[in-house]
């Protein structure tokens, strides 16, 4: 998957977690919880969805790397580089 494809996949998951959020207006470097007005419970659900639908498990020690949209995409992209578009 390319970084663009990862972004599209992540955006689909975010649209489900925060359906009222305008994803096109998110600053990719802003903390996701603040940008989407979601709490830590929603964030955990996002990570569950990332594992179930994208196939990457984010460990607790990597939470700090995936707190923004940009961080999450950059974390996932190299782990999905050799994977076909899903």
């Amino acid at each position: 998957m390319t970084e663009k494809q990862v972004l599209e996949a992540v955006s689909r998951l975010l649209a489900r977690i925060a359906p009222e959020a305008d994803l096109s207006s998110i600053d990719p470097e802003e903390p996701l919880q603040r940008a989407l007005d979601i709490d830590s419970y929603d964030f955990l659900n996002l990570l569950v969805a990332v594992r179930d639908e994208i196939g990457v498990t984010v460990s607790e020690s990597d939470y700090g790397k995936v707190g923004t949209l940009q961080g999450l995409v950059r974390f996932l992209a190299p782990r999905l580089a050799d994977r076909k578009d899903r």
Partner: protein
Amino acid sequence: MGDFRMPSLGADMREGTLLQWKVKPGDRVKRGDIIAEVATDKGDIEIEVFEDGVVTEILIEAGRQVPVGEVLARIDGGPVEAPKPERIRASPVARRLAEERGVDLASLPGTGPGGAITRDDVERAKAASKVEPKEKPAGGIRLAIAGAMARSNREIPHYYVETGIDMKRARDFLAERNEKLRLEERLLPVVVLLKAVALGLKDVPELNGYWVDDALQRKDEIHIGFAISLRKGGLVTPAIHDVDRKSLTEIMASLRDVVPRARAGRLRSSELSDATVTVTNLGDLGVETVYGVIYPPQVALVGFGKILERPWAENGMLGIRPVVSATLAADHRATDGARGAAFLDALARRLQEPDEL
């Protein structure tokens, strides 16, 4: 013979619409069974029965809007206690008129028999109010919150105490424990905070209870109302029951159960009426410190802010620690600042021993 009444699911609730009966005459029920569904300002709520018995008579059919306290059904086998409504004496005409004209009955003196509020009282109050609403009045959950918070600010003399708590041990404990758990089972930091609050309340029990009839009613059970923001705006504070007796895993399971139901408007009546204290955690939204408003008749609210890296001196050494701001809002009629301080001290101590939570 027991009366099953429209419960009050908060000090602000005046009425509800009976959506559905889940029992019929002749059905045997036991304490905790969900026997009806009611639409309220806070969403659709499943109503539980509080005693064992047999349903002998259904008095209100589905679809009707009924005031808090009205008998909905009769159940043979002992009294069936719903939470007691806060009664405002007012004639039915006065109630209807007050609702139509946006007059708060709780703020009116009654001149009718026994101090009951009459139609004339409502009309006088409306005439005295020269302010015409320019926007559509708030409704639903916004109005419910408005009612409860206005009452709180009107009646409860709040005092606040605040402290910063070192979260390094708690955070390390969580990190180590969560590494061994599947994603779904991982513990959120708020789980540790909830348990520490519950244990802190065992040390300072006068913060866990209700202020009713000029007296503090301490509660043995620690049911924490956990503030949950709703997507459409507003919040609900369903009770997580017996937090002091639950393991961290069980508290997390309770959150996983209650949060989606709260957001879907599928809470149970006991979850809305049982809370003995409230915890609100706004750290996720970047807030550093929370100064909450107590939910009456409770006597305390604990607020947590964001866990931030801060300089922290200990044993003469300066370092950087994750620190959370914990704030207690408490009812000065029930306790004094010294007890509030004792609670925060107990809370901080509990959080330094996460293995014991």
